[in-house]
């Protein structure tokens, strides 16, 4: 048995020694990535397909360059696609070594061109799981358990190459899967609202964000807006991630753009295909559009503010206008600077 990221005993030890105090965790995104994301790390990517993907964090990682990464996620789209694109363009600066995944594609927007490119050319190593498997692996990690049982996908070929173990249940004598916990080195999480200590209030589906944050050794959170701590703790039942599971919190409006951040902005149905088409062209041998995309939107900017400034305002207003999600709780005060 091998572990990627931390083993359960290492993860416990690491957390036991960690400073869990309630302190202001604001820091720049640049510093957060410098401090917490290392070459060779296992990164837990939060969100679901293209909703609340940690796009701002991933763009910053790409600007700084990180190598030999393992990416762990259930269903993701843009975040691993961006990292894959960076690897395709310059593997000496950014590279993915391995993915532990359930699904990488873009649902209505189409398949992932670069997953095809990287795997069909054997440039990365894969470990396939189901959505429930990856979710439950993060959950086991967040619970401090070395494994968690699961009934699916028993009978699937996934079990022939991944690390799941099938045993007979000692109580029912029927076979059951045991999934090893996942403890990424760093969780990359985007939420709508956080306070300066790192408490997060997620609107809409939680996906696997709390589990990933609590399973990982470190957690970087970007939020569309920072709110007053008192407004956060006024509704303690609505806090999705407690502050002591978070190491760095950065206010990055549109930090999940061009994906969906429930209650704030919908998928950008123009920009996602723009990026995906450049990836598809790369897969088919035309490198230029992808290089141009990165030069323009990632390497050519300092941060997400500059990235968003390159998108026509009307396009941004449109994704805000059509966002149909539950509006955020009325009770908050945006934190002044």
């Amino acid at each position: 048995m091998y572990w990627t990221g931390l083993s359960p005993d290492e993860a416990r030890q690491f957390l036991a020694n960690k400073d869990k105090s309630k302190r202001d965790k604001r820091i720049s995104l640049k510093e957060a990535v410098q401090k917490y994301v290392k070459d060779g790390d296992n990164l837990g990517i939060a969100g679901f397909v293209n909703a609340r993907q940690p796009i701002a964090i991933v763009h910053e990682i790409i600007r700084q360059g990180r190598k030999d990464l393992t990416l762990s996620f259930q269903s993701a789209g843009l975040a691993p696609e961006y990292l894959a694109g960076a690897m395709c363009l310059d593997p000496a600066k950014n590279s993915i070594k391995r993915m532990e995944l359930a699904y990488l594609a873009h649902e209505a927007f189409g398949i992932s061109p670069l997953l095809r490119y990287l795997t069909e050319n054997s440039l990365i190593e894969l470990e396939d799981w189901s959505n429930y498997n990856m979710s439950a692996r993060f959950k086991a990690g967040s619970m401090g358990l070395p494994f968690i049982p699961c009934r699916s996908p028993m009978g699937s070929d996934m079990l022939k190459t991944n690390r799941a173990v099938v045993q007979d249940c000692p109580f029912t004598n029927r076979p059951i899967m045991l999934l090893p916990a996942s403890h990424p080195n760093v969780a990359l999480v985007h939420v709508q609202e956080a306070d300066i200590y790192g408490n997060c209030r997620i609107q809409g589906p939680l996906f696997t964000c709390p589990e990933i944050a609590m399973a990982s050794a470190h957690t970087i959170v970007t939020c569309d807006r920072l709110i007053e701590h008192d407004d956060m703790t006024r509704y303690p039942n609505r806090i999705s991630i407690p502050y002591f599971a978070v190491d760095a919190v950065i206010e990055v409006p549109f930090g999940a753009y061009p994906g969906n951040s429930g209650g704030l902005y919908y998928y950008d149905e123009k920009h996602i295909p723009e990026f995906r088409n450049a990836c598809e062209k790369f897969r088919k041998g035309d490198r230029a559009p992808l290089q141009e995309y990165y030069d323009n939107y990632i390497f050519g900017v300092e941060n997400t503010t500059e990235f968003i400034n390159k998108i026509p305002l009307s396009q941004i207003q449109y994704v805000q206008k059509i966002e149909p999600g539950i509006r955020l709780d009325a009770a908050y005060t945006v934190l002044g600077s």
Partner: protein
Amino acid sequence: MAKYSEDFTPQEMIVVAGSRTLIDNKVVFAGTGLPMVAITLAQLTHGPGIVPVFEAGAVGPELSRGLPLSVGGSRTTYKANYLLGLNSAFELTQRGFCDFGFIGGAEIDPYGNLNSTMMGSFPDGYQKPKTRLPGSGGASDMACSCERTIIIMVHEPRRFNEKIDYITSPGYLDGSPNARWRAGMAGQGPYRVITTKAIMGFDDETKRMKLIATLPGETVKSVQEATGFELIIPDDVYAFEPPTVEEIRLIREVIDPKGYFVRKKIKE
């Protein structure tokens, strides 16, 4: 006005067939794309009490804010009756709360096993597939743990194979008695296969795929010719009732007016 529509796409036919297969007041775990359209159509016709479940976390929402582009998007959450995350959705399913699940794949075998992971040689070629597909997502979990599954497929011979390259979502496995139970699964397995050409089920005894009905424009022969393995053809195969004018109107004007899913090429 005629009762039946005379102008519909294969995708619309699948949606109508999927919708009619659903039963009112049942809990239905919705995959992305056509299943969402089929569920909404059923809600607007015979099944107003159908309860949709989305793997990203939303349970029992009203689907009245536009067709979701993703099972994790905001449009799945309006007036939901429960809203946590992936673990809670799959735990509900494993527990037995989901009567039906809608799944698909790129490739299917006679026992309803589905492949949505890779084309190529497995396990030796796993790290260098001929074609890499998106992966399981939640389909394999739904296949194992929903009480019954409804499979949606494009009907082409290369997708219907006696042996598939990789079992992502288990059906009846090798078809042996109680194969699913013995493997440790919770749900009963595939109920219907709905394609662009036919409605199929599975033989109670052998668990092999059998033809139930041909869709408009198809015959038993044309369906068999489009299938890469031998189908069981019972005596009572019937011609499926074509989409009604009202069903097609609902799909085009109410449910998917932008044609996101029903006018596109069906995705693998």
